[in-house]
């Protein structure tokens, strides 16, 4: 997007609201910092740092899971995609929601029962510890960093649009600010602080979305057909706006891309490390199940409301204005708030500031969750179990995790500053695809397949990881497309933007081949232990 376009919004609409927006941002930051310090005082041992003491209730964790999951991509991205592409934008939310059933039926409870702090605990349970933990730590960090980059880049876009900061230095400063805050949240507050931040954010996000949804429906006298009709008409695309195909229906390749994306979305969630470690914060598997149910209810309700947000924006705002503000529609939701309140009124200013602050809170909370997942995995899987061979004390692990947080924070500030102008949607979809290709096959085989071996685990993690990342590297997301990360060069040969349709079956296949071709016998006694523990909760931490 050109700086000229950015300044359109900044100058015309956001500038006079800036003090209010900054005040609300500031209040959120102060409140969350207070929570963090309070939680930090209560964080005494490794179980506190990694798992928040395992004392959160199912409802609290359900809220926190929702807070972790409803990222800027959901809030800004889906509303924007619906506002621009109508029905096709809505398809995202369906994949994101249905995916929770995989987590509920197959992963959440066994993981809570048999693991301790990280995803690697379950993957390495009956395998040779060092190689499998290294692999699990690697894929955790890769998935989380891709997801992190998307959030950081999103923060840069959002904040620079709303605060009118358009200079490169200004954007880098914003990315650095987000990075420093997340280092503070995670290194001081640990899982306890992060969980409370997620809860606060979830309540703010649901509250803000409810308000805007209510105002949109009020405009149309709660007549949904009327809302859809006006959106279709105002979009200039007519009935096609309400039908599938505007974004993905153009060619056979784009249709295939849509299937690939759909598969990655539905299978990715149950392999996202920052989501999985949330199940350790509750006392037992039953509470983990209940927290997934709460999350499904909250997230489902939220996605239903994004329909009203997206079609509301399409109905009430000129498409050109949405695109001028952000070509991907990422600012449709804040713009909608402004228009609902009245473009030149104080009420409009207040609504815009509120929704922008909510979006900022969303990004900060998700970023904290991701940082925690990667630093936990580094400290617990790689430092404690690979480098120190299981001889590190809890206190040493926590110290390592805090340093890892600082390190990962600095790395993501650096990468985020580089990625500040990149297409963020590709990064999120990539994170889902990598999670589904590298993590999910290994989790499922580990839990349910008696014969699965160390070699199978390594082949499926690294195979899925390398193929997923490799295909994206040579896809139109990276080069050879006007919207690519490097639009001026072209080294792509893989036609799809999402690798899932190839890389996910590949991950499963590699796990299978690695196992049947391996010379070592599976550790049957360890599998008996894992199976009994995962289904009954015997000896759960």
């Amino acid at each position, binding site marked *: 997007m050109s700086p000229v376009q950015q300044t359109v919004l900044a100058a015309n609409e956001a500038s006079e609201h800036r003090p209010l927006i900054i005040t609300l941002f500031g209040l959120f930051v102060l409140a969350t910092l207070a929570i963090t310090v309070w939680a930090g005082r209560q964080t005494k041992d490794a*179980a506190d740092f990694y798992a928040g*003491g*395992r004392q959160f209730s199912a409802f609290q964790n359900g809220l926190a899971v929702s807070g972790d999951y409803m990222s800027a991509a959901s809030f800004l991205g889906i509303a924007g995609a619906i506002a621009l592409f109508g*029905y096709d934008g*809505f*398809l995202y939310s*369906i*994949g994101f*929601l*249905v995916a*929770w*059933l*995989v987590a*509920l*039926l*197959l992963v959440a*409870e066994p993981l809570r029962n048999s693991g301790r702090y990280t995803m690697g605990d379950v993957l390495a349970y009956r395998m040779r510890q060092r190689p499998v933990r290294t692999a699990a730590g690697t894929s955790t960090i890769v998935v989380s960093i891709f997801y992190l980059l998307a959030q950081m880049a999103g923060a840069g876009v959002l904040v620079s649009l709303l605060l009118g900061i358009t200079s490169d230095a200004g954007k880098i400063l914003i990315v650095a600010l987000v990075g420093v805050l997340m280092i503070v949240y995670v290194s001081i507050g640990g899982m306890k602080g992060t969980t409370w931040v997620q809860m606060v954010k979830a309540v703010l996000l649901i509250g803000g979305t409810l308000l805007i949804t209510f105002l949109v429906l009020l405009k149309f006298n709660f007549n*949904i*057909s*009327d809302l*859809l*009709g006006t959106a*279709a008409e105002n979009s200039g695309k007519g*009935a*096609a706006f*309400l*039908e*599938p*195909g505007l974004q*993905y*229906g153009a060619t056979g390749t784009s249709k295939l891309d*849509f*299937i690939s994306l*759909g*598969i990655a979305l*539905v299978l990715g969630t149950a392999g996202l490390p920052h989501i999985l470690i949330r199940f350790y914060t509750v006392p037992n598997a*039953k509470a983990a*199940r209940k927290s*997934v*149910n709460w999350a*499904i*209810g909250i997230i*489902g309700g939220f*996605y*239903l409301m994004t329909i009203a947000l997206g079609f509301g924006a399409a109905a009430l705002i000129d498409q050109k204005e949405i695109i001028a503000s952000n070509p991907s529609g990422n600012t449709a939701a804040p713009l909608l708030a402004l228009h609902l309140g009245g473009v030149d009124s104080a009420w409009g200013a207040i609504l815009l500031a509120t929704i922008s602050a909510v979006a900022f809170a969303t990004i900060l909370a998700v970023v904290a969750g991701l940082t925690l997942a990667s630093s936990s995995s580094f400290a617990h899987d790689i430092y404690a179990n690979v480098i120190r061979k299981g001889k590190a004390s809890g206190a040493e692990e926590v110290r390592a995790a805090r340093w890892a947080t600082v390190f990962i924070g600095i790395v993501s500030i650096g990468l985020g500053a580089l990625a500040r102008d990149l297409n963020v949607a590709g990064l999120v979809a990539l994170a889902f695809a990598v999670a589904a290709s590298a993590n999910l096959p290994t989790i499922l085989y580990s839990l*349910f397949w008696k014969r699965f071996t160390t070699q199978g685990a390594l082949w499926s993690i690294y195979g899925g990881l390398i193929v997923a990342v490799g295909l994206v590297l040579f896809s139109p997301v990276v080069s050879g497309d006007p919207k690519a990360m490097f639009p001026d060069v072209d080294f792509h040969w893989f036609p799809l933007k999402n690798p899932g349709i190839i890389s996910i079956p590949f991950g499963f296949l590699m796990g299978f081949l690695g196992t049947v071709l391996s010379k070592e016998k599976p550790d*049957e*006694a360890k599998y*008996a*232990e894992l*199976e*009994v*523990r995962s*289904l*009954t*909760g*015997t*000896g*759960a*931490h």
Partner: protein
Amino acid sequence: MATDAPPPAKAEHHLPSAEEFTAVQESAEFGELRRSYRSFAFPLTVAFIAWYLLYVLLSNYAGDFMGTKLLGNINIALVLGIAQFVTTFLIAWWYSRHAAAKLDPKAEAIKSRMEGGA
């Protein structure tokens, strides 16, 4: 078993031996629990993924059908999309009910015997 045991701490549980785990895994009672879980969760997973993929494929390749208007501007695409939400809520509820009625009591019985029987 100690009578004045400390509160059920997150500290060290009594963890049964490898032989005990293997014996339990091979027991009829555990086999029943495993069957009860897998015969419910696995087919249901296949079913909801198939239903989701059907929806994705219809969106891709049956645009005219999906665009059929049912009521005002509400078309089949939107109704099927909302149906995905509804089935997700229903499956979550159904699984949780099954787990509470059929799985939890069996799991609880095995767990308390294994952790208690030191």
